[in-house]
Structures are given as C-alpha cells and as structure tokens.
C-alpha cells in the first residue's frame, strides 16, 4: 500500500478545501488533498460542478431566451421586435459545461502551481492523523500532522420522494437533456426558486410547492415581495403551506396535501426536490474520530478547530450558512493558522445572495434581527422606482435597505432586491467590515447613473436627508 506523508491533509476539493490547499501551499506547507470526484463534484466541489456556477450559467441563458421571447411577443417597452427566437438547450448545457471545465481545470492548475499533491479517491479517516484513500489503483494511506475536513454537503431527499426517475435534485436539474414540459419544484428556498424561475423562462410549466406559509422563508417579506410578483408574471404557481406526499400511483404527478384542502395531484415530468442540503459526514470514518457534533454538523470554534487537536473543519460540513465564500474564507484562515499565524474567523458579516429574478442580497442584520438583538435602529429604504438607472434598464422593481444603530449610526445590515443587485454585495460587505456609519456612506460620492445610488440614498434617508424621494 502506497503511503503519502504531508504536513496538511485536506479532505475534499471544494471551495473550502481547494482554497485551504492553495493558501497552505503558498505558505510553504506540504499539502495533500483528497478529492473523490464523481457525479457530485471533482475539484471545485459542489460550487463549481453542480452548484453556484452551472446554475448561474443556466439562469443567464434562460433570461436571455426569455427576454428575446418577450420581445418577439411585442412586449418590448422601447419598441424592439424579434422574429421567433429559439433555444438549442443541448448547446446551452454544452456552454455551461465548458465554463465548468475551464474553472475546474483552473483550480487544478493553481493546486499544481503550489505543489499540492492531489489524491483522487474516496477518503476514510483511520484516526485523527491518518486517512485511507481508495483510488483507482488501490488503497493509499495519507498521514499528516494536520487534517482539514472539507467534505461539503449534498442535496437532502424527502422520505416521500427518494431521488431517482422523475425525482431529481439540483445536480440533475443542471444537466437535463431537455427542458421538461412540466416541472414541479418542492421547496421555495433559494435553490428551488432560482432553478424554478430559470426553467419557467426556458418554457417549462413550473409549480412550486412549499411547506411553510411563505416563499423564501429565510428572507423578510419586504425583500421577497418583488420575487413573488415576478413569479406570478412568469406564470409560476406557488403553493404555500403545502406538503409533497409522494408521486401518484401512475407516477406522472406529484400528490400535494394542504391543510383544509383535498389531496391534489400536479402533473409533472420532473420533480425537483430542493428542500435543503445536509452535511456530508457519512462513510468518511468520522465516527472513528472523537468529534463533537453540532446537530448534523461538525462543531467548530472561531478558528475552525474541531474537538480534536489539529483536526480542522471548514465549509458546509460545519453548518449554516452553506456558502462557498464562507468556506473559502475559513479554508484560507485554517491554512494560515496551521502555518503558525494568529487568526480567528472574525468577519462582521457573510453576504448572502439569492439569484432569483429579481436578485436578493443581504449582508448583516435585518431590521427585525437588529431589534431582537436589542438595538434601537434607524432603517432607510430606497426604491429602484426612483433610481434613474433602474428605469433605463427596465428593472424598477426592488429597493435597497440600510439598517443602522440609532445611537451612533453604525451600519448593522444592508439588503437589496432588484435586477443585478448581487454585484452590490461587495460594497455592502465592505461597508460593514469597515465599520461604516450612515454618514460614511452618505459622504461617499456614488457614480450617477448607477443602481448603487440607491444605497447612497437609502443611507441618506435613514439620516432623514434623502434627496430623490
């Protein structure tokens, strides 16, 4: 059995793992990275292969096609007309796969540049320093002083809807051979709505089934209202307070029960289950380690240290928020800690973006959360309907909202909903990390005409000084 010795062993090549590997390599550490590959990943993990990146590609193509069709139906407000647009979906998927390929090979090249030993195979922890990897050429043993667990998460199925056949997860939804005629999405969280809206734009008849009473339960209604309006405009039916009970006997419809209503069957060519993701902890030999768990997740402290000395964990494995950029920040930090630097995860906020139509971005606290934390707050909102740039883009639905402490005007949270607002997340996060007060944003000249002016105006409004409303 081949044996590899390294200073750092990283289990998992997703955003948390590969960033940890690159950073550790930059710092001169000897790194081995185990990646199991397969349908759910490869280098780049869920994010690059079956998550963030491919979904955004599909969403972009869907929007382009939808836009063209709108114009073909003479709905263009500025008088553009288009003759019968058509989409070759196979080429859309091919284009998406090309992007994924470019990015994953880029990750591979970076790892190579920093001399990371990549072991392809399935890892099983033997103890806190040793890992067995089943590779194509037989088992190998990797021994290391430090172990970074970065195994990520996977789509969770529902007991009534096990994956297979018509029932698919987001992974399969991103590689469908053709646009399904009728798609039922179970779960109105961000994954379900992003993909549901994209497939509606591609021509599918989409129905969304959500057990909670409202869609995007993680966001407040001020932010979700424009999304709800858009869902209606796209002809997507959203059933809230409804539970998916399983496929019909014929297997071509989803049975849905809601309180006080008869069981209903919704015809479906595909049923996309997007009710959540669970930490990938099974089959890794983690039970052989003495890891304290935090529910289904590996418990970590502010340095991403687990309950075992020199065993670290980053990313989705460690719980919510399951976001690639959180995993990357954790991975880089752990590498620096292993290299002897003093670091703790002390970010003020982790931005979260929902690539629905329109997009939602949140950073820091919502007004309600800030009040619940005991703060007296000033809240300023500014609608895109009063923003020149939004009007010229034909995207006036949405707003920017700034929440600040009433006593010293320290900004506690910023949120926005609107077309393209995901790009505002950098400005929002920077403001929070730098400890900006409302006056700092108010005193920063924002370029005209841009959507970012709404951020400026929302801050002015929180100060009672708004100019354009």
């Amino acid at each position, binding site marked *: 059995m081949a044996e590899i010795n390294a200073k750092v062993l990283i289990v998992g090549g997703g955003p948390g793992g590969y960033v940890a590997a690159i950073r550790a390599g930059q710092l001169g550490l000897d790194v081995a990275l185990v990646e199991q590959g397969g349908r759910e990943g490869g280098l780049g993990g869920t994010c690059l292969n079956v998550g963030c990146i491919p979904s955004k590609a599909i969403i972009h193509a869907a929007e382009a096609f939808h836009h063209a069709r709108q114009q073909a139906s003479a709905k263009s407000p500025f008088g553009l007309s288009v003759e019968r647009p058509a989409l070759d979906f196979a080429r859309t998927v091919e284009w998406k796969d090309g992007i994924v390929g470019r990015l994953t090979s880029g990750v591979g090249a970076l790892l190579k540049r920093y001399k990371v030993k990549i072991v392809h195979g399935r890892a099983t922890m033997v103890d806190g320093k040793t890992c067995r990897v089943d590779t194509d050429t037989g088992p190998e043993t990797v021994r290391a002083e430090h172990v970074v667990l970065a195994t990520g998460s996977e789509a969770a199925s529902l007991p009534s809807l096990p994956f297979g056949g018509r029932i698919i997860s987001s992974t399969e939804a991103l590689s469908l051979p053709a646009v399904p005629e009728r798609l039922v999405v179970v779960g109105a969280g961000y994954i379900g709505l992003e993909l549901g809206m994209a497939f509606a734009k591609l021509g599918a008849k989409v129905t969304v089934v959500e057990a909670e009473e409202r869609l995007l339960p993680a966001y407040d209604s001020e932010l979700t209202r424009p999304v709800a309006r858009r869902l209606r405009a796209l002809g997507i039916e959203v059933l809230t307070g409804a539970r998916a009970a399983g496929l019909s006997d014929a297997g071509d419809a989803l049975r849905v029960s809601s309180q006080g209503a008869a069981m209903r069957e919704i015809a479906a060519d595909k049923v996309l289950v997007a009710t959540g993701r669970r930490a990938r902890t099974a089959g890794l030999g983690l039970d052989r380690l003495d890891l304290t768990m935090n529910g289904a997740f590996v418990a970590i*402290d502010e340095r991403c240290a687990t309950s075992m000395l020199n065993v670290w964990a980053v990313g989705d494995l460690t719980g919510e928020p399951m976001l690639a950029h959180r995993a990357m920040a954790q991975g880089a930090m752990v590498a620096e800690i292993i290299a002897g630097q*003093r670091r*703790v995860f002390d970010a003020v906020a982790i931005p979260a973006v929902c690539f629905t139509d329109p997009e939602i971005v949140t950073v820091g606290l919502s007004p309600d959360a800030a009040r619940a934390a005991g703060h007296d707050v000033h809240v300023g909102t500014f609608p895109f309907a009063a923003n020149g740039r939004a009007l010229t883009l034909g995207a006036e639905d949405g707003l920017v909202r700034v929440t600040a402490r009433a006593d010293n005007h*320290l900004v506690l949270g910023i949120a926005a909903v609107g077309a393209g607002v995901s790009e505002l997340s950098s400005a929002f996060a920077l403001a929070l990390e730098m*400890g900006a007060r409302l*006056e700092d944003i108010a005193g920063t000249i924002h370029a005209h005409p841009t959507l970012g002016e709404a951020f400026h105006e929302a801050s002015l409004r929180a100060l009672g000084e708004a100019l354009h409303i």
Partner: protein
Amino acid sequence: MGTRIVKMPDVGEGVAEAEVVEWHVKVGQSVLEDQVLAAVMTDKATVEIPSPVAGTVVALGGEVGSVLAVGSELVRLEVAGGGTEEVAAAPKQAAAAPESPSPAPASKSAAPTPAPAAEPAPRAAPRPPAEPVPPQPVTPGPRPAIAKPIASPAVRRRARDAGVDLRQVRGSGPAGRIGHEDLDAFLRGSAGAATGGGKVANTAVETVKMVGLRRRIAQKMAESKRRIAHFSYVEEVDVTAVEELRAALNAQHKSDDRPRLTLMPFLMQALVRAIADFPGMNALYDDEAETIERHGGVHIGIATQTPAGLMVPVVRHCEARGLWDFAAEVRRLAEAARHGTATRAELGGSTITITSLGALGGIVTTPVINRPEVAIVGVNRQVVRPVWQGGQFVPRTMMNLSSSFDHRVIDGYDAAQFVQRLKSLLEAPATLFIEA
C-alpha cells in the same frame, strides 16, 4: 432565559479527564464571555477554561479536586435566549505549557477590569456633529465594554499579529471605531518606550512551537515545580584540599591512559559515602501511590547540556565504582548525550542528580528536582577567597553547593545534616576513601 451547559473541553492530545483545581466563579455569579470559569489540571498541564458565553452560573460540575471526564458538564449557565444548549468550552492555554507565548498586554493582566456594563461609548450623540471632530487625545486603556470592537479587517489582522486584544484599545473614530493610528498609539503605550530619536516599537511576535525534547523538558520541569515542595540549602565548601589531591592525581597519571579527573568524580564519591548514612536521600517518591522507594544502588544522574537541550544521563551503581571509573563513565555518557547516541536506559533510572554549570556555576542556584527523585545537588563556581584561619587570612579555594530537597519527604534538619556530611567529606578528602 435559556440554559447553556459548558462542557469540559478536550484539553490536549489523548487526555480523557481533568481535575478541577480551582473555581474562578461561584453559583449565582454573572460571567462575561471569555471570563475564566475554572482551572483544570491534566497529567500534562493546568489549563484555564474561559466561558464561551455571557450568563449567570447556575451550577458547578464538581468541587475543587473533582476529576471530570472530557465532555462532561463543567458549568451550567443561565443565558439570554431560549433553549438548552450544550457547548464545549475551548481550553484557553495551558498555564504550564509555554507553547504559546502569552500575548503581551492582552490576556490576563488587563482582563479583570470589570467596567461594570458601561453603556457603549456615550460620546456618540444621537445626532453626530457634521463638522469634523478635532482628534481626541488617544490614551491607551480599557474602554467601555462593547461586544465586538469596531475595526476594519486590516486593523483586526494587525492587532492579532501583534497579540493585541482590540477590546483593550480605545477607538478614536466615529462610533468608537479603532483605526490604525489608535492601534499604533496602543502599541507605543504598551511598549512603554518613548518613541523619540526615530526609534520604532518592534511589534513582531514570533511563535515557536514547543516540540520534541524542549516540550518534554517543559513538561517535566513544570510538573516537578508544581508537585514538589522544593526547598534549597546552600553551603560553602573549602575545596582546597580536594583540588590539591585532584591536581596531584592528574599529574601522577599524566602519561597513562586514565581519564583526567575533574571535581565531579570526587563529588560522586562523596555522595555515595554520604548516602550510606542518609539512605532517605537516594529515593524515589511516588506521590500518587504515596510510597517512597529507597534504593540500595546509587544511580547518579548528571545534568548535561546538549545542543537539543538539557539531558540527564545516568551513571549506574556508583556504590560499586571507583574514582577513574566515574570519570570515564561521565565522559562517555556526556558525549553520547551530546551526539544523540545515548540509549533510553542511559537516560533514565537515576536515584539522585548532580547539576553543575562549571565555570558558569554562579554563586547560588536553586536546582529543580528530577522528579520522582527527592534531592538534587548543584555545584557552583570555585573561587579563591581570603579566609580567616588561625588568626590570619589565608587564600582558600571555596565553592558553594546549592542543593534542593523535596520537603514533602525530607525535613530541613536531615537535609542540612546531609549537606554538612558532604562538606566534611570533601574538605577532608582522605575520608572519601577510608572504609569506616
């Protein structure tokens, strides 16, 4: 209100349980996040356990002396918010293991500044002035407690690299924001040096991991100091006669292949003779089993400086050896230790230890006992001094012996008698070799 259970954290590799050696909190007391709850001891180190959250102590997991398993309840806290949660506290840092150099002003010294829940910076008026505020004089010192200091990521990182807890830094910016200049001022202040003459405070902190022999030495020394009630006894010895004898013997055997004699073989011979009268000094004390093993064989450990650190090779069965035998064996073992070729057996099993720094021996030392032994004899520097003898000053070669004893098992009276016996043996070297 909810309940939070703080569990005994994993305090180190392979440690399954730890003994509570001190409670820093009482039932009913309110604690802040990071406030030390308890000190616990493992077989390797004593570790302070800080509270992961703020709250009120509802129950303690045991009394001082209780041995708690890792993962069992250490402290039960009542905290704001609902639900019962279990959290493993993170061990602070081993008080004994010097693996992390204590960050300069941050940790303990300034921590107990209770700043009784002062309102966060009332300087910020509800309607902050529009005109620029004149820069306020920046004085280092604790500012009113704020949950999280407001500072940019760059400032936070610099502070962490310099080992500064930003909660101790006063922020001069709006809303108490800490800028680079605030950190600079704090670092200048804590460096305690006037920064005139173009001198700049060096804030570099190098973290050196304690590994291998250094780590073992640290553990052994700390363990010895913690467990043993040391006392030291220093006596002056006139070594003129033994030095003359040594010089004569060396001159006599100049041409044969016998090793050159140092004072060490004479001291070892003196120890063997003195131990015959004081067998309690040549003993191992097992403080857990509470037994004392008195050894017939005198196995003398010789504290030896090596490139890797302190080692103690052992000359076994000194009661059966002679003067040149001592010299040869000491030289062989010292070389083996320095070259890293000493075997495990040669580095263990001593029953009493001699430590000598030769010319660096100083006037007095306070040697640390090589646990589980009960005595160690330290040799200080020789010096020729005028001594009042027979109505006049005469030049005599004088040397101090600084010895430490385990007061748990050796009384001061016996230790003094033992050292006096060594002194009289060395001052009349013939008695070293006369079979009584």
